[in-house]
């Protein structure tokens, strides 16, 4: 009997004009492999019934709050309620767009990270800011392409954000500290907006409200960028991203070097360590250095496919992440294809489809 995979459509256009649709490519691959791909509207009330008639479900969703919160619930329900294979599964996605969850998870797994401090009580956060070493990096749990990451230079600035995080909450770290007259103006402007029916500090489809915590991370100077290692199954794709001009952040800068030679082997092995311990279906691992040692700053699931596709090859690890050999496999790979083929191979009866297609 033909394998049936329910697929939710996705499509975005990146800043560089690259159109990306994992689902379009998955539909094409399914056709080539004799698999029935069933389009699903995840926002339709019959979505679960439609998925239930299939053997698996795939949805490459975006980090935007509205989509993500729905997708995570639905995928979990399908995985745990229908007990069908899904992409991404809970193991891969529970910490997506949650830097706090990622930090605790990496820490628990014994993965080196920049030193971080998370406070759940205002008093503790205030105390920390009074005695902290500046600058440090302030982060929200959510935010991608370096949004919601700020360098904090002094206690005054830090306490401004403590106040926001433990009073009204924020959807972004856009507005920084300001003079008293400017703050009064902001307040008046907010009251005016509210008078016309718009709550200025409310959440949106893009961002949920972040409230009740303070997440600080040590600033690691001397990093001109980071290394992104994308793990898909047994493949590791690597490239380096350089910081934006006059900035300490690299994510979303678009300044990428795909040359494999300068990539530190220890960064690749560290990414594999993350992969070995968390066993995700796919994951982007962002790595910087503390002195000479690589440390993981963030995990990502919604990586841009074009950046992975443009890698001139990838590494396959044979053996243990510490001592195993890294084999370089030349050639470009579409991450959509790698994810699809790995996923199908894990569905009962799916391995034959992939094998025939590859043959």
């Amino acid at each position: 009997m033909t394998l049936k995979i329910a697929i939710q459509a996705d499509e975005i256009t990146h800043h560089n004009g690259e159109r990306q649709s994992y689902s379009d490519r998955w539909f094409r691959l399914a056709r080539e492999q004799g698999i029935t791909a069933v389009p699903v509207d995840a926002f339709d009330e019959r979505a679960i019934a439609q998925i239930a008639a299939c053997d698996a479900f795939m949805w490459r969703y975006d980090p935007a709050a509205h989509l993500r919160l729905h997708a995570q619930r639905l995928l979990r329900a399908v995985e745990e309620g229908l007990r069908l294979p899904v992409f991404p599964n809970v193991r891969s996605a529970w910490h997506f767009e949650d830097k706090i969850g990622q930090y605790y998870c990496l820490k628990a797994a014994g993965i080196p990270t920049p030193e971080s401090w998370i406070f759940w009580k205002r008093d503790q956060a205030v105390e920390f800011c009074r005695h902290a070493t500046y600058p440090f990096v302030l982060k929200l749990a959510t935010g991608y392409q370096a949004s919601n990451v700020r360098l904090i230079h002094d206690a005054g600035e830090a306490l401004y954000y403590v106040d926001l995080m433990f009073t009204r909450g924020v959807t972004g770290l856009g507005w920084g500290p300001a003079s008293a007259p400017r703050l009064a103006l902001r307040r008046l402007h907010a009251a005016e907006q509210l008078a016309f029916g718009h709550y200025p500090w409310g959440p949106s489809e893009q961002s949920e409200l972040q409230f009740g915590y303070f997440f600080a991370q040590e600033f690691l100077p001397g990093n001109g960028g980071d290394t992104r290692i994308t793990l898909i199954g047994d493949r590791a794709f690597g490239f380096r991203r350089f910081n934006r001009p006059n900035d300490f952040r690299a994510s979303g800068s678009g300044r990428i070097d795909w040359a494999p030679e300068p990539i530190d082997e220890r960064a690749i092995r560290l990414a594999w360590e993350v992969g070995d311990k968390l066993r995700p279906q796919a994951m982007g691992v962002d790595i910087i250095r503390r002195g000479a040692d690589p440390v993981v700053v963030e995990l990502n699931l919604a990586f841009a496919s074009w950046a992975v596709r443009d890698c001139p090859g990838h590494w396959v690890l044979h053996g243990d992440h510490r001592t195993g050999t890294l084999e370089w496999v030349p050639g470009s790979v579409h991450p959509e294809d790698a994810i699809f083929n790995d996923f199908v191979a894990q569905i009962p009866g799916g391995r034959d489809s992939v094998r025939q297609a590859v043959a």
Partner: protein
Amino acid sequence: MGLRLAIQPDVVVHPNGTHQSFSERWAAIAPSYGAEVVPVDVFTPDPIASIADCDGFLWRCASSAHPRVYARRLINAVEAGLGIPCFPSARATCYYEDKLAQHQFLTAAGIPHAGSRICWSREAAERYCDGADFPFVVKLAGGHQSRNVRLARSRKEAQFYIDELFGHGVTALNYRPAGTWRRLLRHARAVAECGRGRYPHAPNSEAELEFGYLYTQEFLRNNRYEVSVIVIGNRAFAVRRFVVPGDFRTRGSSGRMDWDPQAIREADLRLALLVAGHLGDCTIAVDILHRGSDPVVIELTLNYASWVVEKCPGHWLLKGDPTTGTLTWVPGQTRAEDAVFEEFLTRVRHAKADEALDSGAEIARRQTS
């Protein structure tokens, strides 16, 4: 060697004055099970360090948003990163105080539950309400003891909730639909608060801001009470909670209740055990109403009051499958804390045994290769 269990303290005083602390009880009984307790303070900067050397982690956290949202992250991280069992399990924390996730899970698992609808956009919500049968029940994802549950009697009332949920968002369904003047007054009050530097719709330590969805549930008439079945392992405890006169809701464990086992139908028990089996955690409370004579799940709860369980004159013990297995009545009172602890210990021991098997297999593999 005995087991080491990391335990986060919890304490709550219920509206009836009962002091409840699962952690205190666990600490008291742990030695008799050969377990050593490692007290944890999850609010210190490095909670993982104190959990890392343990065989399991227990945190019976309150329903309030602040600890709950944190607990979900920490427990998921501990299970994924340290690979040790937690109570509640990472899976359970994701359904805890999230009725939207519960609805999708119950639908996917094919478990009968009250007909529900989630609309993810204002347009979809308005379209749905245009054709809906009234009254229906409006719920927020979070909220316990019947909080954040309202009856929408008309299209106009439904519009009020749509405006709230797709406008500024709400932390609770405190405000009811009102006339134009009253709504204007509320609005003016919010503007004035904002001008004074306060934040009228901000979340707080008790409640998150609920935004961007409308969750409705069919109104099941003629239910004088709901049945709350608390499942711990293969034990089922049950209580009936009566609807408040003049209302359609019960008051959770603060209202009138009845522990008579004769009044509990077997179908209700089996349904609850089925849900618990699907979820696979140590414990879950399943709230059940009836559509005609058929039981349907209304809600799942993790933080039931332990005194309600203790007042049960006995429990039903399931042997076999929830649908066809035998249910035996076991008389006598049980403390929920003890039953949960026993159940959790069993899981920890299984996890340790699995770990030993895995490392044995790994050694054998290395020797062979």
